Every structure is written in C-alpha cells, then in structure tokens.
C-alpha cells in the first residue's frame, strides 16, 4: 500500500468524525486532526479503533498521542505495515 492509498483511507476514516467539514476540501498531510478538522478527544478514540481495524495494526496510546496531523497518522500506519 503506498502513501497516497493510505492517505485516502485515513481521510475516509476521519470524515464521519470531523466537526469542520469545510476543512476536508483542502485536507493534506499537514492538516491537524484536532485543530483543523476539529475531531474531539472522544472521537479520536473511535478513529484509532477504525485505523486498527482497517489496516490490521495495533496502535498504542503513546503512538495515538503523538499523532497531530493526518500525515502523522499516515506515517504511523506505513511504519507499522513495513
């Protein structure tokens, strides 16, 4: 799976949890999950569980805590799948 494929899937996972849907129009690797997309803390747990299911990986709390941007999530997944 390449970066673009993972990116598209991550954006698809985030979509239902985003409170600022207009920010999705310009979403990039640099977009902040909490600040720009306004995913709140409870929804973030849902996102982590969806990522685990979709990509068949385990994400620790420390890894989840380190994810600030969409790109951080994509890189975390790519590293776990490598």
């Amino acid at each position: 799976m390449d970066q673009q494929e993972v990116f598209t899937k991550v954006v698809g996972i985030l979509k239902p949890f985003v409170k600022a849907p207009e920010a999705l129009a310009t979403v990039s690797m640099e977009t902040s999950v909490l600040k720009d997309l306004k995913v709140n803390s409870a929804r973030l747990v849902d996102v982590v569980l969806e990522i685990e299911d979709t990509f068949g990986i385990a994400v620790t709390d420390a890894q989840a805590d380190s994810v600030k941007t969409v790109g951080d999530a994509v890189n975390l997944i790519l590293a776990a799948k490598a």
Partner: protein
Amino acid sequence: MIGDDVVDLDDPAIAAHHLRPRFLDRVLHPSERAALSATRSPKVFLWSLFAAKEATYKLVSKLGTPVIFAHAEFVVDDGFRSVRHRDVEAVLEIETDVARGFTHAVARTAGSSRYQRQVEAIPVGADASREARQALLRAMAAQLECAPSELIIERAPKPGSWDGFGPPRLLRHGVPTTVDVSLSHDGRFVSFAAQLW
C-alpha cells in the same frame, strides 16, 4: 489546579459506545469496566467516567511533567469521588443532569476548596470556544468585582502540544491572575471551572 469536561449525553454519535467492548477496553480500567457492568445506566456512567478522565488529564497536563493521554491510566474510584493518575490523586465532583442532557466533571488538586463551575447551553451554530470564554469571563468579572473588559483568557504558545497552545489562563490588565481556569465544550453545551484560591 483544576480541570473540567462536559459531555452532551444526547449526541447521537455516542449513543452506543457503552455496548462496544473495544472502546470500553481502550478507555476504561478493569475496575471501571466491572463497575459499568453493574450499573443500570451504563451510557451515563460511561460518559461520566470519560468526562472525569478528560478533566483530570487537563489538570495533570498543567502540573509540569509531560503526560500521554492514555484514558485507561486515569482511574476513577468507585464512588466518583477521586481520579488517580500515577502519583497524582484529584478530587472529583460530577454533575449529571439527564433532563438537560449533560454530564460535567471537575477535577481539582486536594486542598483547594474555593472554586466555581458552570454549564451553559448555547444556540445552534454558535462558536462554542467563544461562548465558553464569555461565560467564564462574566463569572470571573463578578467574582473579582471588575469589568469583564479588564479580563482576557489566553492560551500561550506551547510547541508540541496538540494544537500548539497551552492550557487557558485568566489575565487581568494583561497580567496572569492566580485563578486557575479550565474550559470545555461539547455539542449543545459549554462549561468552565475556576479555582479561586
């Protein structure tokens, strides 16, 4: 130090989380899971636990040591009176209003007794972050017997934090006050807590 968190209980997005084992495993300590399975209102119970953990995270993150937000490591006691995170124990007070549809947790460090808390409903489409600040400013102006215009709430830059800013602080005439504050917003509600002294 003080932290608070409000949860809109009528948000359809959280209607079934109390039935999702993986979510429960991720956010709850085994003792909390056992207590949840024995309660008659598991949804309200879960979100009160969640609010307690978030409120305590906000408090602990102000104590200086960097903290990872691992929900299950914030352990709420059986009677919702305290929350423990490693060697920090916070005093907990939960207000749940099922009729209005919210649960609000306030976590404080022991020894601080004078504090104020509030939950307000906001109009649909309002800027929740702004509404929470306005509610806090009005209450603090009354408390400090000054005009709201003398006060501001700021979040100083904090590189590495989730949005690049630290916790909110109350300033009077541009100078930080000794009042420690916390803000939260979720769905139809905004809230604050302020530790006065």
